[in-house]
């Protein structure tokens, strides 16, 4: 005969959203932080919400720079508010999902036309200003405006053969000028 014992479980108080946010932001005292960290370790729901917070933060950081000049923050927050009002999210996770989706939607509708316009402008520039066959075709290749210009000259390797020589640099208006000096004692015949 097998006797069965009633299972007992202890229900811990759920970690509220505000506390979790302050934990994520590092606003708790060291003691509070330590205690909460222990609780989070055994709270799958808190771990999930924490990872959502991290994901959202990463998303914001990732796009903050590129959107700094183009984003219409009023429109974004109005959109978030409207979406929250429509969806009436219940929990923290659901609110995060609503905010994230509005953010992604805003990014898509704001950036796609900008990128498309930029790409079309670049393509148009290449076609319109393509140099004539007589002009140096070097310009036609372009070199990517995003790459910072590197100045000066640099000797990467030298084979002096049977000669001896020195490689050094001198400065010309702040730019490094590479010099290879090959020793030759007598004038070659």
């Amino acid at each position, binding site marked *: 005969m097998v006797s069965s014992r009633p299972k007992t479980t202890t229900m811990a108080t759920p970690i509220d959203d505000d506390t979790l946010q302050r934990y994520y932001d590092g606003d708790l005292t060291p003691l509070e932080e330590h205690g909460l960290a222990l609780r989070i370790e055994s709270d799958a729901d808190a771990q999930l919400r924490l990872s959502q917070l991290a994901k959202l933060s990463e998303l914001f950081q990732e796009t903050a720079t590129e959107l700094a000049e183009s984003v219409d923050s009023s429109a974004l927050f109005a959109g978030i508010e409207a979406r929250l009002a429509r969806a009436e999210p219940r929990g923290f996770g659901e609110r995060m999902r609503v905010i994230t989706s509005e953010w992604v939607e805003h990014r898509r509708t704001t950036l*796609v036309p900008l990128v498309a316009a930029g790409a079309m402008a670049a393509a148009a520039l290449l076609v319109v200003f*393509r140099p004539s066959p007589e002009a140096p075709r070097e310009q036609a290749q372009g070199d990517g405006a995003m*790459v910072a210009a590197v100045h000066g*000259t*640099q000797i*990467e390797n030298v*084979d002096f053969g049977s000669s001896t*020589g020195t490689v050094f640099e001198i400065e*010309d208006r702040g730019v490094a000028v590479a010099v290879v000096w090959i020793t*030759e004692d007598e004038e070659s015949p």
Partner: protein
Amino acid sequence: MTARVLGYLTALCFLSLLAVRGVAAQTLVVPGEILIVLGSSEGEGIDPQLEKIEALRKPPFDTFTKKSLLKRAEVKLEIGKETEVELPNGRKLRISLLEKLKDGRFRVSVSINRSGQRDYLPVMTVAAAPGDPFFVAGQKHGGGTLVIGVRVGK
């Protein structure tokens, strides 16, 4: 729907851009300039065409009290093709454009030898920003020393 169409247009534009760049990369031709200068400790003066090259007034070139421009050659450098410039001492300077680097500089190889020989400067490789010079000096000639300035791109 509109966003999707714009997305396709963006991709199309980028592909066109890459295609145009690809065609241009295959036919890369870069202008270059070779200056052959004779530096000497006898006499004084600098050729007016060399006055703007500040590097030639700095050590070790400042030991030459006289600098004469013997030759100025405009060349067109193309990947896969060697360009030769005859030097006053009978040697030849051979220069080849190897590639354009991502940072905008050009990688070129330079050698100086007599035809069929490989004794003086077998080869050297240089990364040069467009318009910035580098020098190969030291050959004795006409009682002085040859200083060869090379500029790739403009």
